[in-house]
């Protein structure tokens, strides 16, 4: 079920009513049933994979918790992780690898590609997200980070919690389960706050992302024939499309959870205001995934304590694995994601290599280092570096991505002169208008949260802002178009 569907608009109030009617001790059961209904609504077959992951992770967790530290405990963790992450890898890459191998072997032998068996079912929707949640649960049990053992129902709700199951955030059991154990309660303030987040998330998805999508889709599809100006606009639009699509989903997930008294972690923090790619990936973009990689991959690999060479290697490994994790995200499984990961890893290498220099310069010129113009310049450069990487993320192939970047780069000096004569359409103006609006909101929010500002403002302004967003959804929203990009695993 999609958050933008009519079914969901009926589903959510119904679940809220059931939640309110149930005694606090039994609310988890209502939410568990609702989560399974939500997940199985479109494709009931997906419930099998969800049930299987839940049983595997609960049984492994139980076995780990009952075994004393030592090789057996490690073995159980390894077995559980192999099943969970191995199945994720197989779902994502088996068909791709089989095809690539068959093609390569055929070319090597000078024959036609071999016919290879494929996995006959698509990856269950949201599998990447709940597989990572499940894996984090196992590691946290192994590390004894949970205050008490979780029952099968607790684990089931943690894995299946409907607002986050399709596209995160990848919440940790260490923060999620204690909330369940303390009893789920809500109040009018949480309901209102949750509703505001849901509406804002919908605005980002349905008004901004969906209005940017058609132009992006069109031009990335015909990269070889599109004009450089159109490609440049598409690159900018895609950077904001993917941000609004994904963070819109997250806002809705966090908002809905708040309505039920569950606090999910922040997943985006105005990423395009980041002053470096390290800040972008470490503190502002898909924070739950970044922290997952930090805690369960980067640190176990030795992190920054194993010497500079290992540190650089670890950074690159994390970004390459992140690239693999993102593969299949609505744009197929291809080598582009690996390049995307490597490029971001390279940016972070540059960041690490020049960090000392910037620090020393900042110490010498503290006023300039803290000045707004420098912040703007750094955010501008960071945004463009990230946008270049997004081209590999979105393009059909590495060749297409290179073609797009080449066409833009070659004609870049002429582009400013073309702007006054370019036949901009309503689609362009609307897209740029929405992007500017979003940036204005985020700049204001960066200085002091808008929620706080609105709470302190007169009622006409508060209500006016709410009506403006709701009516923009009705008037400008593109409903019933596409699923959330990050759901399409």
């Amino acid at each position, binding site marked *: 079920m999609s958050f933008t569907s009519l079914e969901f608009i009926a589903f959510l109030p119904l679940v809220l009513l059931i939640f309110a009617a149930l005694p606090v001790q039994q609310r988890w059961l209502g939410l568990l049933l609702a989560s399974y209904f939500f997940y199985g609504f479109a494709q009931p077959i997906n419930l099998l994979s969800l049930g299987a992951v839940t049983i595997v992770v609960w049984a492994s967790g139980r076995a780990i918790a009952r075994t004393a530290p030592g090789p057996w405990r490690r073995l159980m963790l390894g077995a559980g992780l192999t099943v969970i992450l191995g199945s994720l890898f197989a779902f994502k890459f088996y068909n791709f690898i089989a095809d690539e191998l068959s093609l390569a072997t055929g070319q090597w032998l000078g024959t036609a590609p071999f016919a290879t068996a494929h996995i006959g079912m698509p990856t269950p929707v949201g599998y990447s997200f709940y597989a990572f949640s499940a894996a984090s649960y196992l590691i946290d049990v192994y590390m004894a980070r949970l205050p008490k053992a979780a029952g099968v129902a607790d684990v089931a709700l943690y894995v299946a919690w409907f607002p986050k199951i399709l596209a995160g955030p990848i919440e940790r059991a260490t923060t999620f389960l204690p909330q369940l154990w303390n009893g789920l309660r809500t109040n009018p303030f949480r309901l209102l706050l949750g509703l505001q987040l849901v509406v804002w998330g919908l605005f980002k998805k349905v008004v901004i992302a969906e209005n940017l999508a058609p132009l992006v889709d069109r031009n990335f599809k015909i990269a070889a024939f599109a004009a450089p100006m159109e490609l440049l606009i598409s690159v900018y639009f895609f950077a904001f499309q993917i941000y609004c699509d994904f963070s819109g989903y997250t806002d809705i997930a966090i908002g809905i959870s708040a309505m039920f008294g569950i606090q999910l972690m922040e997943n985006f923090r105005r990423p395009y205001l980041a002053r470096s790619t390290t800040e972008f990936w470490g503190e502002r973009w898909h924070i739950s995934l970044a922290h997952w990689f930090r805690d369960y991959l980067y640190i176990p690999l030795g992190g920054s304590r194993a010497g500079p060479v290992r540190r650089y290697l670890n950074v690159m490994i994390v970004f390459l694995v992140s690239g693999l994790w993102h593969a299949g995200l609505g744009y197929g499984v291809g080598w582009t994601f690996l390049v995307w990961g490597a490029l971001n890893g390279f940016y972070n290498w540059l960041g690490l290599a020049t960090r000392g220099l910037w620090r020393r310069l900042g110490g010498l010129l503290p006023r300039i280092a803290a000045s707004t113009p420098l912040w703007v310049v750094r955010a501008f450069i960071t945004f463009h570096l990230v946008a270049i990487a997004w081209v590999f993320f979105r393009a059909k192939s590495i060749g297409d991505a290179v073609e797009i970047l080449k066409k833009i780069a070659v004609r870049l000096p002429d582009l400013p002169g073309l702007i006054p004569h370019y036949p901009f359409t309503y689609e362009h103006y609307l897209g740029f208008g929405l992007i500017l609006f979003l940036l204005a909101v985020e700049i204001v929010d960066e200085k002091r949260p808008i929620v706080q500002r609105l709470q302190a403002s007169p009622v006409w302004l508060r*209500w006016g802002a709410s*009506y403006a967003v709701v009516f923009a959804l009705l008037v400008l929203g*593109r409903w019933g178009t596409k699923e959330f990009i990050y759901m399409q695993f």
Partner: protein
Amino acid sequence: MKPEVKSAALFVVIGLVLYAALFYATDRLVYRTGRSNPLYKIAVVDRKSFDWVILGASHAMPLDFADFESFMEKEAGLHILNLASPGTGPLYNRFVFEQFLARHRTRNLLYVVDSFAFYLPAWNEDRFTDAKLLGRTPFETTTARRLFSYSLNQGVDFRAPLDFVTGFSRINNRERFERDIWEGEKQFDRVFRPSPSMTKSRITYLYPKPPTPAGLAHYLEVFDGLVALAQQHGIRVVAIKVPVPPDFRSQIPNEAEFDAAIGQLLSKRQVEFSDFSGSMAEPRFYFDTDHLNRSGVTELFEKQLKPILISSTASR
């Protein structure tokens, strides 16, 4: 009443008032920009009775492109109303015709038959939820009631009446300020250069699945209901197939079976049926893969349609 509840109620009431204003404004806009939507035409036409009403899918629409309908009216001395709309089969056509009969009268009904529209819900039940059609349909309580009735009895998705009464597609219409002109009308004076690949993709679009006898039987029954309705009102029904290019015609699947089935139904109902589909082979008569351009409809009217239309005056 608690202050928070009072405040929430006031917020909702103001929101509803704003929504009502938006609903009204967008409905007025439909009247200002209206042109080809059949329900819009029914709502705005002054005349109570007509000599001919034309129903069908997009192949019937060129008869109303540009000023061609007034040309036909002048030439034949008749009052004609074309209520065809793109991609619509007999179920949607019947809905439109019922809506027409609620306020107007006609002596004759010209039904332009297209086999693709007799196989799939995509061209019938599903068309009721099309935002493009709903977004150009002015609000009327009779339309809303009929939509609810179709939703209950004809398998139309409940979202169609819900969308219509809330005015969602009118409010959400991205082309709200543009005139409601079907893209084909903009190419009316164009001559198409035949393209086998475009013809093939057009056929695939119109016939996405192999035709099934069950689908055909169902929509023939719906069509039979439409003919019966007309005949109950004393309306003479004439069915035609308009010309299409030979390349297009040869690729239509199951056409012989379709012709036989519809021929049988029409003859049972004593409806005249003229098949002109193979009568105009030259590409100069078409603006795209299968629609007549100005030269094409002029030729069709002069040579084939005019005698049929004028024949109605004999029975006046």
